[in-house]
């Protein structure tokens, strides 16, 4: 790798935009993990719950979490793709 190319890569890594992107990725990942844990907890609760109304409540909570996670994973994927692309400001 030429020195010029390496320098551009370094600039890209150190840029504020890049940092923000990384932070966003990490935060989203953290939230999605928390949702995954919540989902597991609710699934266990649903299995042991006998009351019909409570079951309905847990099931709909699970539905919402699934939808949220689906949306979040899509955003996470987009962020990952974006990270792979070289920074436009430092081509």
């Amino acid at each position: 790798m030429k020195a010029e190319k390496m320098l551009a890569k370094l600039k890209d890594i150190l840029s504020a935009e890049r940092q923000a992107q990384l932070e966003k990725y990490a935060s989203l990942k953290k939230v999605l993990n928390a949702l995954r844990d919540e989902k597991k907890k609710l699934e266990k609760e649903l299995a042991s719950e006998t009351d019909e109304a409570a079951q309905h409540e847990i099931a709909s909570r699970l539905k919402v979490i699934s939808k949220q996670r689906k949306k979040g994973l899509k955003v996470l994927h987009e962020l990952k793709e974006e990270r792979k692309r070289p920074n436009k400001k430092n081509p």
Partner: protein
Amino acid sequence: MLRKTFLPAIFLLLAYGFTVSADFKTITAGVAIFLFGMLALEEGFKTFTAGGLEKMLRAATNKLWKSMTFGVLTTTVMQSSSLVSVITISFLSAGLLELTSGIGIIFGANLGTTTGAWLVAGFGLKVNLSAYAMPMLVFGIVLVFQQTKSLKGAGYVLAGLGFLLLGIQYMKEGFDSVGQTIDLAEYAMTGYPGVLAFAGIGIAATVIMQSSHATLILILAALASQQISYENALALAIGSNVGTTITAIIASLGSSTDGKRLAVAHLIFNTVTGLLAIGGIYQLMAAVEWLSRHIGIAGDNYTLQLAVFHSLFNLLGIVVMLPLMSVLVKFLKKAIVAEEIEIERPIYLSGGPGDIRDAAVEAVRKESIRLYDLAAGVIVDGLSINRDVLESEEKVKRVVKKSTDVIDEDIDDLYERKLKALYGSIVEYVINSRGGYSDGRLKEELNRLRQAGQHVIEAVKGVKHLRKNLNRFMRSDNRFTMKEYNRLRRLIITVLRKIEATRMSASESKSALSLDHLKLEIEEKTREFGKGLDDLIRKECIDVQTATSLMNDISYCRETCWDLVEAGSVLFSAADLDETVAMRTITLSEDEIAEMMENPNGEAAR
């Protein structure tokens, strides 16, 4: 005590008078008919004052001379200075007039009211007024029964004039008969004691009848039948001029500060004019005599001379008071200080915008949470439920079922004074802070907090709309309708409670996301309400009009709940800013919730 005994005392006095003298009965019936005519006249003029007078008022009162002329003309047409002063107070309270213009109108009205004495003295006492009154009454009442608003108004005016003339005729006849049996003139008093005593009687009579016009007609009728002396009649006229201010004072009790100032200006003007007239009564009498000679009024025509006197002393009052107008306005503004409206003030935004950026965002968040808490209280009031419901653990269904009485809290007032004022402070602070921020996320956060405040305000507005029908149906017997409204109340309280629970568990970073589940619940419930409504119409449990009201209110309920959730998800997120931003990217929108409703089994859990 005085208030309680006043009316029975008047009734007893009148009843005694009726048994003693038939003429007294005729005179008082004349006064009653006259006053009834005034009421009808007022009713009629109210029809036309709704839009027309307002426009005219703005154009006609931008200069002092214009407002005075306006006062003279309107009082001449309406034949009631009280009506003009009450209307002026109401316009002043509504902020349509300046205080100076208002005082100008009152000055003019005092002169305009003297035309009544001229009309009655010059024309009314010489002809049989009932001949004119009867057709007026007949045409007037026929018009009153018409559907068109303007025709109805014209009917009231015509009938009012008819009653006025009929009343005058009765008073005149009554005094004519009195003259044939007893001589009231024997009770005449001369000199200043007489002037003061009769001025007092004039004040008392006008305060009781609430109309200087009625008093003046009574004076003219008594004077024409020589039941009172000319000098005493003049003193009575002075008294009636002071007493007439009572109507404006009563009207000003519920008005704005400027309305109160105007009523006091009216009292000051008429009292000063009265004092001037009493002090210079003999000089004024000489002036009236001189003037009457020059305009061709006979020396023994005391009724017309009384009209001249009435105009002259009111004119004197204007001449004296006009140069003191600015002093009067200054005095009134100093003496009657505008009451400071108790509005909700911010407690976290006091440090000046943007001093420490993160702290500014936190201050706005805290103030917005305060706004939310105040709004939650107002919403619960609006639903006629005790505020304890938010903290209690009692089942929502039970609490709502128990809450059967309408809570008569002035929601509009609370909204204006507390919520709108506080939200205004938040918006102002955000606008002033935002400019200095280079960090886009902080700027965005401030905007989100401002939007959250807007959602809070919208939620209260929704309940304000909902409350109108809710209060109406809470008082009705239809249990089906009430059941439906109870469902709406239950949903809003449930949403408030669940947001509160989220707030309490805010230590969990995902708390804001858990409100998405509440969005789904709102959609499911409101859809269920709509379906239930169709069944109720089909089974004829509720009529179509009620169903329409309910449909609108279901929509208000849904919007209120959504607004609360949107506000709650911004305000009660304990996660740090990065995580909050991340959570917002995956929060479900209205469309996504709707999509879930349409496709309940479509989501494969991942």
